């Protein structure tokens, strides 16, 4: 995640978080319908994480817990983490949670590692046993990170099976296959 150009890192920071403004801010509008050219203290809105984080560092806003980490999701994860549809809630559940945990709620860290431990086992089983067609429904529930894991396991297993089956050892250079055009 340290890579500046990491596309997942960039997309992850686009996730919205609910914030409460701690200060009045001039010259910006969060709501088109208001007449005033400023944001009042105590007004609530949702901002993308990258903006909320910067404002939070300047103590202009306080960040509250977004819906994907609310009480309802927590209960669902405690009940059966493997079946929770995390993708529709937040495709970057883990990375987002890690960034968010120190800013608003430390207990998110625990939730993440608990959820990952349970879901990891599920991914492990499905990745090495299930055929691809049967797994597609299960794939819909996975976050980005889990999908990468799943694909890593599948592709190395496939490569091994292909090697074991054998097949043509020598690859034909693509140029050799071409037929010469009939001279007309």
């Amino acid at each position, binding site marked *: 995640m340290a890579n500046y150009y990491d596309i997942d890192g960039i997309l992850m920071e686009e996730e919205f978080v609910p914030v409460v403004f701690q*200060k*009045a801010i*001039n*010259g910006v509008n969060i709501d088109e319908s208001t*007449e*005033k*050219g*400023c944001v009042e203290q105590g007004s609530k809105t949702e901002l993308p994480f990258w903006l909320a984080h910067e404002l939070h*560092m*300047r*103590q*202009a806003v306080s960040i509250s817990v977004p819906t994907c980490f609310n009480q309802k999701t927590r209960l669902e994860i405690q009940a059966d983490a493997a079946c929770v549809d995390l993708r529709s809630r937040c495709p970057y559940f*883990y990375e987002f949670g*890690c960034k968010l*945990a*120190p800013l608003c709620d*430390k207990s998110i*860290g*625990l939730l*993440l*590692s608990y959820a*990952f*431990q349970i879901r*990891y*086992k599920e991914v*492990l*089983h499905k*990745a*090495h046993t299930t055929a691809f067609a049967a797994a597609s429904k299960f794939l819909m529930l996975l976050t980005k*990170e889990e999908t*990468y*894991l799943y694909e*890593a*396991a599948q*592709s*190395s*297993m496939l*490569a*091994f099976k*292909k*090697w*074991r089956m*054998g097949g043509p050892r020598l690859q034909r250079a693509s140029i050799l296959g071409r037929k010469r055009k009939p001279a007309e």
Partner: protein
Amino acid sequence: MAGQSDSTMSLFSSEEIEFMAEDEMTEIVPNLRMDSLNFICGDYGPFLPQLAAQVPLWLALALKKRGKCTIRLPPWMSVENLTRVLEAERDSHAFQPLPFHYVEISRLLFDHAREDIPDMYMVRSLIEDIRDVRFHKVETNLEKFTASTVTWKNMSAMEVNVIRAFAGRALQAFYKHDNEQQTPDTDRAMDKQPQIPTDRPKRNLKPR
């Protein structure tokens, strides 16, 4: 070498593992007379008919393809030994000691030196069974691991390679989540410091 075939994932392909396995020593019985061969990796020979010699597997296979030798089955590939190993694998949780490249060596021998293996079908199915049992063991082990130390003895090259990408990613994630709990992100605390909010009184702008 790693990542020659797949630059993004820094993995060995199965073919690369097979290539490495070909450096293992095997015993052959040549049927020709030949002076010793001098290679960068060492000198082999001289070869005399009916006198066993130790050569790397790739050389053994090259000679075999030309019909210049028979390959002696390595002792671990005997039916008795494999039966014993299979039983031990089924009984215990630990991996039994087998050559590091047993999957690749056995496959190469099955492909190229069929007629040198007595009870070829028996040996092949035993090795398939051993591999399946061991792979199932790998999976149950994977299920148990967390970010703490992982010690599995006697895993073979191919078994490691099949789970390399998956296990690497999973360990990284475990490590990240475990650390997240213990140290609440020190570098974030660092970049918070220099920005002391300046509480200047603000003029309210006139609404436009």
